[in-house]
């Protein structure tokens, strides 16, 4: 503990607040009825509403994926037409990316957990937070209208001039995604302000949970990159609706310009999707290894480095599109640079496990699956960053497999780790650990069965977005399809035991994992305003060598801070904070 210096150190009287192990009142029952949910400004409830929405979209996108895989069982037509197939792969991509991956960890898990980890009562702008959710809903509605009024068959990338010429309902779809972008921007702004202004007393930047650092990096990308997507979609709309030539060569435009605009958002967007996953993994690995995180600053700063360099690598999606060789060289070089901080994280997590006390509970299993699959995703990214090899692999199934390893093997596994980790805090209930492990195993097997063969057929030349294919690829496609069914079964099991947990789960208690992190030092489910006291932080979130009592401190007799500075009662602990 720091020594006191009268001039700029403020002394706080603190005492230990043990969380209530089975609270009667909490945020779930503080208010009742549908209306209380629809008008709530509680970040925890908004987080759950996002969670329900993205779960629905994940189900929808997942069913579409199974339809695609089923069609691909045979080289020619199996049961749907080419046009339907093209619409389905477009929807699968657009829904999974814009409606599931982008909001999954930041908007759903992040909303729930960020203020809890900061010891705040809520985010900085609770009403704006609710508005973000409704903007997300509005965007979804427009997208659904697009699906039911002609669909879209451009691929989730909306490349011009095809997207300017196709007869499908591109306008409605881009409008939906345009609206959705504002939800993302507002959530980002909200998080940045919350992290800067709402940290509990003592929670200095070097004590921030790594999950917060990850969400901070993500929010910066969201705020800076999403407007570019909005502008791009607006230009596309102007061209389609008003005939203003921007991307269409018939009108004097340049189709490659569209690709630059699109990837200038969409590459950083990849990091919007994966960086929050890094945060979750850091929390999970340290909690279940019950050990100080290795290389705190390396992990925290590498997230920021990825966020920054991530803005400068968009051109690696366009190595075959006709950029100059110089541009290709620069983008290839920067792409390799962004790989380094990612690799550093992997090694840091491994080093955290070293000499830990590792408890293989389901969140930890998912974190280990993440490490394995994401490493493969990373290595295959190096392959695609190598110019000569990318010329061969670009737009083949190799790319499809690569981003599924990163996005699904990385992000979705991190998301599942996060859901299993914070589930007790959300609902105060435990799920069946046995079934959770079974599901994790099935998903691991199903995932690799689905996507490993795609690396091979991609290397052999199988192009992506193909409805028909030549016979030589059939065994790979069939294997991949069977794998996708196994994967589907895994997710159904998760849905089943999660629902069972909601209805009949055992009470979890405030801190089932024995974590030192702040969100576990309040009751489960959390109280309406997160903490019954104002938490005071004197240790880092991963200081497992310090006693639990030091992590449960709050301002003594402060009545939520109204009597701050008064010296009443016995001094139990003393914390000092720079004013």
């Amino acid at each position, binding site marked *: 503990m720091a020594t006191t210096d009268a001039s700029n150190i403020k002394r706080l009287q603190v005492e230990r607040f043990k969380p209530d192990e089975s609270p009667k009142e909490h945020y779930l029952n503080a208010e009742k009825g549908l209306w209380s949910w629809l008008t709530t400004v509680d970040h925890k409830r908004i987080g759950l509403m996002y969670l329900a929405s993205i779960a629905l979209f994940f189900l929808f996108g997942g069913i579409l994926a199974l339809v695609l895989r089923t069609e691909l069982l045979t080289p020619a037509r199996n049961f749907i037409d080419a046009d339907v197939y093209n619409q389905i792969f477009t929807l699968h991509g657009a829904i999974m990316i814009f409606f599931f991956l982008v909001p999954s960890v930041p908007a759903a898990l992040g909303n729930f957990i960020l203020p809890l980890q900061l010891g705040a009562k809520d985010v900085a702008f609770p009403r704006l937070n609710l508005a973000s959710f409704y903007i997300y809903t509005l965007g979804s509605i427009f997208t659904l209208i697009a699906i039911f009024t002609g669909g879209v068959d451009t691929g989730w990338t909306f490349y011009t001039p095809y997207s300017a*010429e196709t007869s499908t309902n591109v306008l409605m779809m881009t409008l939906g995604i345009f609206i959705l972008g504002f939800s993302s921007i507002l959530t980002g702004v909200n998080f940045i302000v919350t992290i800067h202004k709402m940290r509990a007393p003592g929670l200095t930047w070097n004590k921030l949970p790594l999950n917060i650092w990850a969400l901070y990096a993500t929010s910066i990308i969201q705020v800076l990159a999403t407007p570019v997507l909005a502008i791009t979609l607006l230009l596309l709309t102007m061209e389609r609706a008003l005939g203003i030539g921007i991307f269409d060569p018939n009108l004097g435009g340049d189709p490659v310009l569209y690709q630059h605009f699109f990837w200038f958002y969409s590459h950083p967007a990849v990091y919007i999707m994966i960086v929050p996953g890094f945060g979750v993994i850091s929390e999970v690995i340290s909690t279940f290894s019950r050990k100080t995180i290795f290389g705190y600053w390396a992990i925290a700063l590498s997230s920021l480095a990825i966020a920054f360099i991530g803005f400068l690598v968009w051109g690696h999606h366009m190595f075959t599109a006709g950029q100059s060789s110089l541009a290709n060289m620069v983008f290839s070089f920067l792409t390799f640079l962004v790989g380094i901080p990612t690799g550093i994280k992997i090694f840091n997590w491994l080093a955290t496990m070293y000499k830990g006390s590792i408890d293989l509970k389901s969140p930890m299993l998912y974190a280990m699956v993440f490490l394995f699959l994401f490493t493969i995703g990373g290595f295959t990214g190096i392959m695609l960053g190598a*110019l000569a*090899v990318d010329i061969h692999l670009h737009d083949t199934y190799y790319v499809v497999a690569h981003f599924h390893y990163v996005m699904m093997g990385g992000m979705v596994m991190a998301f599942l780790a996060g859901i299993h980790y914070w589930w007790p805090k959300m609902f105060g209930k435990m799920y069946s650990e046995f079934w959770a492990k079974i599901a994790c195993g099935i998903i691991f097997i199903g995932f690799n069965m689905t996507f490993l063969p795609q690396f*091979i057929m991609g290397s052999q030349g199988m192009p992506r977005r193909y409805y028909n294919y030549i016979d030589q690829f059939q065994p790979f496609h069939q294997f991949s399809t069977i794998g996708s069914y196994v994967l589907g079964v895994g997710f159904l099991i998760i849905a089943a035991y999660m629902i069972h947990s909601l209805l009949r789960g055992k009470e979890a208690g405030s801190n089932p994992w024995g974590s030192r992190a702040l969100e576990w030092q309040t009751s489960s489910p959390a109280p309406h305003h997160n903490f019954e006291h104002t938490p005071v932080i004197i240790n880092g979130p991963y200081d497992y060598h310090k006693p639990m009592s030091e992590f449960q401190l709050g301002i003594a007799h402060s009545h939520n801070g109204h009597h701050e500075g008064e010296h009443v009662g016995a001094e139990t602990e003393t914390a000092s904070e720079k004013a």
Partner: protein
Amino acid sequence: MNRLIEYMLPPARNSAAGETDALFAFINITSFILLAGITFAILYFAWKYRRKSDNDVTPVITHNSKLEITWSVIPLILVMIVFGWGFTGYMNLSTPPDDAYEIRVVGKSWLWEFHYENGTTSVNEMNVPVNRPVKLVMSSDDVIHSFFVPDFRVKRDVLPNRYSSLWFEASEVGESIIFCTEYCGTQHSNMDAVVNIMPQDEFDEWLEAGDTIDEDMPPAERGEALVTQNGCTACHSADGSDGVGPSFAGLWESERNFSDSESTTADENYIRESILEPNAKIVEGYDGVMPSYQGVVDDQQIDDIIEYLKTLD
């Protein structure tokens, strides 16, 4: 390992393919070694340091500068090797020799056209001489396509507003497939073609003959050959089965109903218009997606095609 790498790649038929394949193998092998190490560490730690009791005390290890510098610098060196290697390979792939034989390639939804120096044209079939650098100068008539020959390890987007090019030197006689790898609509996955790699003298002979279509053939037979050569059969069947476009079977002198509720009889003028301005009249139930063949087929050839259609009842 070598076997596996060979299995993963299609046959290499381009003189420059070797360098790409070597880099592919290098990255795969290095990645595999590192992945095996990381996986072993995950599993070993999970077993060795499994929780023994709830009171386990773990050491405080916050960082280790030497270790961290090591695991940053070694990967950095490795990726810089990969970067340099990939870039030199790329420069080689994108710099055709001065004496390369030029073929003009036009991509349109959904076929490939090849134009040779002497005016010979072929559709969905490209003939090239073996052991001679060939440079393709490519453009698109409509949306973006991408020209990909897996056996050559080359790929390049084909754009509507500019020329793009690639080159290769086929190293063995044989047949390789061409794919379109930029999504371009309904028939994207059927937009494939064939490269016939042939000895120089055979190629010259083929080029001299113009194409396989013989002036002495009866018009209807010539028409049939033209329909195949121009890729019409990709969308229009000759046996009445449904495709992207209406079947040719029973077309001649039938009553055609159009999507604007007009109708007409399929006579010479209708067929001529359908070839040169395909979107002027769209048969009910189909989309106006056919590219124009203006400048691809001449009047004599249209006559031949009409003669051929007359034979399909």
